[in-house]
């Protein structure tokens, strides 16, 4: 997030898109609900499903799945045409508006209605509400990013925010809601194929030399590595021999699971380090038992870039070890001795090699976390980014055209499938499905389907359905719901029985390599 979570209550207008906020970020959603209920904020929701937060919305715009660039360009078309944009901000803080204007010219409300299905009147109204707000906050999640146009979608939202002067101000910002406790931290720490900690590029000689010195190694590899999604392809082709997986379950979270399983089985050696025997661990040659969050010291970084402490409350079961200890053990055995007395000592090394973490140490995190960048120990941290200028100087508008999703419906596969999470479970269910009460509230997979589609396919509520895509088929229970819109069904991806990702399409965004989980074509029929 460019802005802290507390800023949501300071916004005049909140635009939520591609985020089922109340179910996936419940506590953060209460900020939105309070802003609307008690602070007079207006809420615009753009989502293919009539998700619960729409109850609080001034406007719910229903776009066809995978048409986000079109409606965002459409809003900008209206804002440019009616000269509602923040001229001073755009002139002094950004570049590239002329290109953007040219591109959005053809995205008239009529044209956008044709692509997205959003009635032109609603689009114009949304654009006006958004542009008139002194401070408008954009909240988005995987509904924006998990598309072949994911990067384009995010850039388009950034365009919209900059056009209205909403970046770098209190109550504004472009705010991705991150789905996992430490996905931000994993990125910050260089758990990515192209960067070291703090997004320092591996292909930069100066940075590499600095890291070589800090780590006491002669030569670090310069070529960026594979992304997780391309890694599966390489494993499938036999180019990748060994995979060491720490605390992840791609056998339920990857798209096109049948393909993922073949890829993992094709490896010479698979090590899985986890707290449970997951679907992925079952395929491993060696499984290493680790400590859960309650059994270790360390830090997580939340969605607002706040580094917060994790504290050990109990001992791990049996002989399970903390992940960092296992890595230290392995490194030593492979000829690179690592020596840390505890997690705090590792953080001291992180701070030493990471400019944005320089000022962070456990002493300062004792009661309250710190937002990075925090360049020195007397720096208070940075809750809001890009305040006086953008990190890169001027904010750059990216002129972007709409491209359709990788897979469209046809006669054989006439329905769109979109996937996501539900309130009572988390990701692949490894943790939540151990709590009896959560299983009681959400026991099994289901297909959320509109009343119209249910009538078309003569489906009754609660009946068993077979859902098939070009990649596989699953069975799940029909749930006729007011949340669904005709033509699109939804399946949560938590469940191993009726796993949505057997169906999903592994088509990737060319820049971020994110799979298009949110759009694929399916057919439904009654299960035999």
């Amino acid at each position, binding site marked *: 997030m460019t802005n*802290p979570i507390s800023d949501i209550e300071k916004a005049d207008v909140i635009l939520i898109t591609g985020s089922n906020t109340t179910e996936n970020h*419940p*506590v953060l959603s*209460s900020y939105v609900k309070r802003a609307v209920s008690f602070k007079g904020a207006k809420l615009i929701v753009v989502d293919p499903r009539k998700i619960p937060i729409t109850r609080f919305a001034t406007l719910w715009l229903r776009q066809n799945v995978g048409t986000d660039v079109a409606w965002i360009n459409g809003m900008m078309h209206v804002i440019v045409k009616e000269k509602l944009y923040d001229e001073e901000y755009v002139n002094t803080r950004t570049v590239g508006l002329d290109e953007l204007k040219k591109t959005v010219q053809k995205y008239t409300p009529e044209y956008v209605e044709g692509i997205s299905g959003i009635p032109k009147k609603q689009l114009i109204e949304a654009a006006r509400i958004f542009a008139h707000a002194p401070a408008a906050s954009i909240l988005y999640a995987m509904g924006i990013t998990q598309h072949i146009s994911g990067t384009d979608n995010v850039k388009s939202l950034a365009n919209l925010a900059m056009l209205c002067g909403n970046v770098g101000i209190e109550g504004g910002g472009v705010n991705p*809601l991150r789905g*996992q*406790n*430490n*996905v931000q*931290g994993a990125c910050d*720490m*260089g*758990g990515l*194929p192209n960067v070291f900690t703090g997004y320092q590029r591996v292909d930069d000689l100066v940075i590499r030399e600095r890291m070589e010195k800090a780590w006491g190694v002669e030569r670090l590899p310069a*070529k*960026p*590595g*594979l992304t*997780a999604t391309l*890694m599966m392809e390489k*494993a499938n082709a036999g180019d*990748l021999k060994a*995979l*060491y997986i720490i*605390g*992840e379950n*791609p056998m339920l979270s*990857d798209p096109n699971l049948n393909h993922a399983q073949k890829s993992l089985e094709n490896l010479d*050696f698979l090590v899985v380090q986890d707290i*449970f025997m997951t679907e992925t661990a079952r395929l491993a040659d*060696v499984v*290493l*038992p680790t400590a859960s969050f*309650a059994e270790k010291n*360390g*830090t*997580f*970084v*939340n*969605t*607002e870039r*706040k580094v917060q*402490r*994790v*504290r050990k*409350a*109990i001992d791990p*079961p049996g002989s399970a070890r903390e*992940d960092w200890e296992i890595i230290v*053990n*392995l490194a030593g*055995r492979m*000829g690179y001795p690592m020596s840390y007395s505890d997690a705090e000592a*590792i953080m001291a090394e992180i701070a030493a090699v990471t400019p944005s973490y320089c000022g962070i140490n456990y002493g300062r995190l004792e*009661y*309250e976390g710190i937002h990075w960048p925090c360049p020195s120990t007397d720096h208070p941290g940075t809750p809001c980014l890009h305040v006086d200028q953008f990190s890169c100087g001027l904010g750059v508008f990216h002129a972007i055209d709409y491209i359709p999703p990788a897979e469209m419906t046809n006669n054989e596969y006439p329905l769109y499938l979109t996937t996501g999470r539900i309130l009572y479970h*988390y990701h692949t269910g490894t*943790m939540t499905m151990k709590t009896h*009460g*959560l299983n009681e509230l959400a026991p099994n997979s289901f297909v959320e389907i509109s009343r119209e589609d249910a009538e078309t396919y003569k489906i009754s509520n609660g009946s068993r359905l077979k859902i098939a895509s070009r990649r596989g088929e699953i069975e799940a229970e029909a749930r006729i719901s007011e949340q669904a819109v005709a033509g699109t069904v939804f399946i949560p991806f938590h469940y191993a029985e009726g796993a949505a990702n057997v169906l999903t399409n592994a088509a990737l965004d060319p820049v971020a390599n994110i799979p298009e989980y949110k759009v694929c074509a399916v057919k439904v029929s009654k299960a035999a």
Partner: protein
Amino acid sequence: MAEDRLIINDNEYTFEPGETILQVAEKNGIRIPTLCYLKGASPTGACRICLVEVKGARALVTACSTPAASNMVIKTDSPRVIEARRFNLELLLSSGNHNCLVQGLDMDSWTDFQLKAMDAKEHKTLCPAYGDCRLQDLAVRYRVKMNRFPPAENQHPIETVNPFIVRDLSRCILCGRCVQACNEVQVNNAISFGYRGSEAKIVTKGDRALKDSDCVFCGECVQACPVGALITKDEMHSPGLDVDIKKVHTTCSYCGVGCQLYLHVKENKVVKVTGVENTGPNHGSLCVKGRFGYDFVNSPERLQKPLIKENGAFREASWDEALSLVTERLSRIKKESGPDSIFVLCSARITNEENYLAQKFTRAVIGTNNVDHCARL
């Protein structure tokens, strides 16, 4: 005296327009007892425990809902105030099954009341909130004996038909904190005051059970309840105050909001989770997963020993054997097929420190940049 000044207990203080007497007092370290007051929600003045005396005012006023005004002269602990608080506490205690402090009743009615209060099968232990009850604290502090009013008849059966929350309205004092927590903090709008007069109670829409209502089991109401009326199921059979339980402040391990929570720990087990109230981002709020989804930590299915697969089946191994095998295989593959034939999937679930070491291991030890995690998935 200047415009924005007032006097509390003979000392002069400044205040900001819009502040209540309670806020001015708290800011200056003066403690006024509260019961129904919920920080972050609009004050209701329902319980009348925060009564104070304002010079010139005919009646005592509630500090939580009375705005500070210039030249006010306030007494927070005058004999009149103390007597009024004690009287209100007696009324609250007599409103239901508050059978932990009934030493004032005469012998006959004492036994009858205790028997009646312990009648429900859920009341076999005295009260799960014993020792962690705001009403009990205040009753002790104000030496309330509860003999002026006969205990009320219990009209409400205990509701346990959901996975997480026990609603025992026989212990509800109608302070309204749960209603505010639900409507003003979480804004789930699942409960409100219902019925009138002596029939009054907290209800869901249509007075249905929580599981059939709009409730999403965030448990904000349980954390807000100052008595034993709303408790978690796991607490139901606990003996109340347990000095062996320690609380550890940590960060939730589910979504990316990073709620601050306390793990309540006893005998190496997590037995309860509550939100940390005076820090962001959550200020005490949690969701159903964060508050109730902790069973995985103590699950018997947790992996406890390294496992090695032989002939298609896993067998247990020592750390030494497992690590040796991993070292040997990774070293051989690195030598035969090069570092880029190895990939490390680090994790959005583990700590920064662990991710840091995972990528350092990949780059410095294996010698490849093949490291990524599920940010894309």
